[in-house]
């Protein structure tokens, strides 16, 4: 018995090449998002942002990474053995793994070989995503706990409560889409949006998913896990150097993953509106452009909204988001049944 049916797969060497390409793309996107965030936050606050390193500050992420990697690998004496080193690795691995299922395009003929422009097309797309999201939480939890610091521990505890609360809503928000599309494969969901992107019929699902996505990635206004003002950086307080860089990398990659999922599930993936059918090589750029827009929304919201209080976070998650997501799923289910007959 297999765990999941893979929709389409190629020869092993193509898969290896694809894995390398996707990882390389993801690795290049992270510094771009990092720089974009700092530049845009600057603009939102009527300043320039980094503009000293390289032309227009373009080499700032590189300088950041060089600075972090040349630092001492400090470990507090209260930290717990290898867990302290393992936690950032979990974070980064799950983020990269989740990136694998985001489809950048349909199956294309590249030099006569059909290649799907995605890591893997599993028949359990969203479940795979949530599975890795749940494991990613261990990165934060273990990191905060094994640091042996109060602040880190508080951040980790908040992270645990937050992720549990919002994962439910996030899952339920996707249920509506899955009902409508009738498939769990992400490429299948994109193809089902041929007539109309799901952002229109599943508008509430879109909003709920987006808000829960902010919470899942620990971004403002749900960045209680880090909460620099109260927790001195939360779960990563005791981290420095390369390990901190891994956490940082994972955080931004998670933003990209959520942008990718929003793009795929609600914004029609590689499809363009008004019946435009560009050649296949345009598809990845369409997806990247849409991901850029969603990422811009992430940064925009971060520049706008203040951090929620802990009780506000909980009451918002359980009293507003979860009922809304449930209602959305219910109404969608009823409508699907009614219109199917």
């Amino acid at each position, binding site marked *: 018995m297999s765990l999941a049916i893979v929709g389409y797969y190629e020869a092993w060497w193509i898969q290896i090449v694809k894995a390398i390409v996707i990882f390389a793309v993801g690795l290049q996107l992270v510094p771009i998002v990092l720089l974009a965030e700092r530049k845009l936050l600057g*603009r939102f606050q009527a300043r320039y942002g980094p503009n000293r390193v390289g032309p227009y500050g373009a080499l700032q992420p590189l300088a950041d990474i060089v600075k972090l990697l040349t630092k001492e690998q400090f470990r507090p004496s209260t930290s717990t053995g290898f867990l302290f080193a393992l936690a950032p690795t979990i974070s980064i691995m799950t983020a990269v793994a989740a990136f694998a299922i985001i489809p950048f395009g349909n199956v294309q003929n590249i030099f006569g070989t059909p290649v799907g422009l995605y890591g893997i097309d599993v028949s359990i797309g969203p479940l795979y995503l949530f599975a890795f999201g749940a494991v990613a939480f261990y990165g934060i939890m273990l990191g905060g706990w094994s640091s042996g610091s109060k602040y880190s521990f508080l951040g980790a505890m908040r992270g645990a409560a937050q992720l549990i609360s919002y994962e439910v809503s996030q899952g339920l928000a996707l249920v509506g889409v899955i009902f409508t599309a009738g498939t769990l494969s992400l490429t299948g969901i994109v193809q089902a949006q041929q007539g109309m992107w799901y952002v229109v019929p599943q508008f509430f699902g879109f909003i709920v998913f987006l808000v829960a996505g902010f919470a899942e990635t620990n971004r403002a206004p749900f960045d209680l896990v880090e909460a620099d003002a109260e927790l001195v950086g939360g779960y990563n307080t005791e981290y420095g150097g390369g390990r901190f860089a891994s956490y940082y990398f994972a955080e931004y990659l998670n933003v990209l993953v959520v942008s990718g999922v929003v793009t795929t599930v609600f914004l029609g993936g590689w499809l363009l509106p008004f019946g435009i059918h560009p050649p296949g090589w345009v598809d990845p750029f369409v997806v990247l452009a849409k991901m850029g827009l969603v990422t811009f929304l992430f940064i925009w919201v971060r520049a*706008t909204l203040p951090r929620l209080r802990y009780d506000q976070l909980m009451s918002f998650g359980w009293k507003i988001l979860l009922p809304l997501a449930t209602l959305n799923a219910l109404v969608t289910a009823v409508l699907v049944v009614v219109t199917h007959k």
Partner: protein
Amino acid sequence: MTWDPGKDVIQVMRTPPPGAARSTYRAFGETLRGLKTTFGRMLEKPVTLEYPEEKTPVYPRFRGRHKLHRFEDTGLEKCVGCSLCAAACPADCIRVVAAENTPETKVSAGERYAAVYEINLSRCIFCGYCEVACPFDAITMGHDYEMSDYSRSDLIFTKEMLLAEPLERTPLRREGE
């Protein structure tokens, strides 16, 4: 027996709390308004002054680093070493050691001159009292405000440094600007 607060009690009137639907709508509307505001800010030009390249212009009466002056026609120093500036200085950062002018070497216009004139700029609070106290307008406050240095001893400015024509590094702002 409970304590009777008497007339100290103030009745506070509050508006009724908004209902669930209304407060949700209000939160959503306010969020959108906030997003609109920040987006507007993003389109504006940044107010940053890129400091080492662009400098903040100062007003003509700005109190920067001190200058000592000479008479323009004779080239003699205006300072006569009276130590009134040192007496007026609240931070006690001026040190003056006076000496007599001789007919062979005439340094200042008066009888005496400042053989040593030092201002410890790491102590100076730029109040300008020295300028006010000086009977000969020998010391004035300049416009230079870039005085950071690597060691404290480098911040003790001697008479030669204060007399030297300072590099005019600071842009001047007009009075009405």
